[in-house]
């Protein structure tokens, strides 16, 4: 479960990026965060994995206030999350296998476990045949699928996706959202940040709309 209480965020002297945001996302929910550019979507996402610390308010993930966790222990929270970005953030000099395996290596997985889980994750995104290729040899859609495999390889409780289809054409975007929906059906809470209203309409789920840092919630579908 994700809970935010009266979260405010201001970057230096700019206007409020988040303004008194209070929300609850129950476990296993499929949820969109939408709004125009600069509305605070990415700030909200970064707050969830504590890339940024809010100016005020509390952020509770799985019953723990992540703002009270010391910096050197924040990795323990992130190990239960999978994060997907618009620009994929893959390691270009490492093969697909290594790109996915890295999320398990940090956990100290055994070589056998690591191979098995990476293969399962790549099969889920239908890229098992590209396991020994480099990201630069893949299409954008395939690269994003590798990023999704990396995000889910250690069975996270929460999957956060920040504009995951921003660089993809509508057909590929649909494919990626289908994957997210599948991951959600396995019990993972999925929070997707997007401004693609058509995809939101098609996939349905809870929609949290941000405008100038303020939250306006409504349910769709």
């Amino acid at each position, binding site marked *: 479960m994700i809970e935010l209480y009266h979260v405010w965020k201001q970057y230096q002297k700019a206007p409020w990026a988040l303004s008194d945001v209070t929300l609850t996302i129950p476990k296993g929910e499929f949820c969109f965060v939408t709004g125009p550019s600069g509305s605070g979507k990415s700030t909200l996402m970064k707050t969830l*994995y504590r*890339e940024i610390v809010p100016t005020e308010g509390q952020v509770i993930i799985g019953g723990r206030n992540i703002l009270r966790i010391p*910096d*050197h222990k924040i*990795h*323990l*929270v*992130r*190990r239960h*999350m999978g*994060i997907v970005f618009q620009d994929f*953030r893959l*390691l270009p*000099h490492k093969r697909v296998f290594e790109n996915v395996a*890295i*999320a398990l*290596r*940090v*956990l*100290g*997985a*055994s*070589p056998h476990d*690591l191979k098995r889980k990476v293969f399962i994750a790549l099969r889920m995104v239908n890229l098992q045949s590209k396991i020994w290729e480099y990201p630069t040899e893949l299409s954008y859609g395939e690269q994003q699928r590798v990023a999704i495999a*990396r995000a889910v390889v250690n069975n996270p409780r929460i999957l956060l996706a920040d504009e995951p289809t921003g660089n993809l054409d509508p057909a590929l975007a649909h494919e990626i959202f289908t994957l997210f929906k599948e991951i959600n059906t396995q019990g993972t809470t999925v929070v997707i940040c997007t401004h693609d209203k058509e995809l939101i309409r098609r996939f349905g789920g809870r929609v949290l709309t941000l405008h100038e840092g303020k939250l306006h919630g409504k349910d769709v579908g």
Partner: protein
Amino acid sequence: MTLPKIRYFLREALQNLWRFKARHLFSLTIICLSFVTVGVVLSLSSNLRLRSRELARDLTVVVYLTTGAPAAERDAVEAAVRRSPLVGTVRAIGPDQALERFQAGFPDLRDILRNLGANPFPASVEAGLKDPGAAEDSILAFLADLRKLAGVEDVQFNRDWAAKVRGVGRIVEAAGIFLGGILILASFFIISNVIKLNVLARRSEIEILRLVGATNSFIRLPFLIEGVMMGIAGAAASLLIVLVLVTSFPLYLGGSLGALRELLAFRYLSLPQILGLLGGGALVGFLGSLSSIGRFLKI
């Protein structure tokens, strides 16, 4: 730490060394040159120290007799030397024997001796001391007594030689420590900057590692291992170069070294010195990389 993790760190460090090979080669060269300086100085100073110890071990008092001194005076001098409680062994050396010795020690100077015509070497009595470390005063009194004897031209005691060789060894050592210290300091800063460049070049990778839940040590360890590997590789390369120098230098200079050849024996480094240099390389690499990730890798 598990074995797969150790394997992963080593592989990462090696891959990164290879990925940024140009800058690593540069820093490796600097480390190598620094440690070559230290290695040569170590070899030279330890040889000189060893030589001075050898000289001190066979300390002898040499009493040179006046040319044409009568046999009675020679016998009296020899008897006086033998009587001293300080003396262990006594050896009388005739002029011909002294000439032979010189010719054997300095073969290049045979012609000069031939031109002189007559044998310039006097007869002498060599006295080996029982205890080379005996009190300075008693030895000096013994030398003064010998000088007073009839038929004695000069008395030499080679303790000065040993002291001089030891002194030169100390000067070489001090100069080496100074020069090597500066170069090792330069190596430290170069490693530190190379690791800083690596950290900057791998910012996005570090970012990804943080987001997938890597600990600080998981992110930092490959950088530290890289530094240590660079340091060890540089020191190992320097050991090879020192070996080549120590072996080829006497060959290159050949006979022109003369008596110096024996003094500068050009022995290779001892095992503790080799291990010390390798350990020093590892330490410089570790500290250089630690200082860099401490400053530039805020996680």
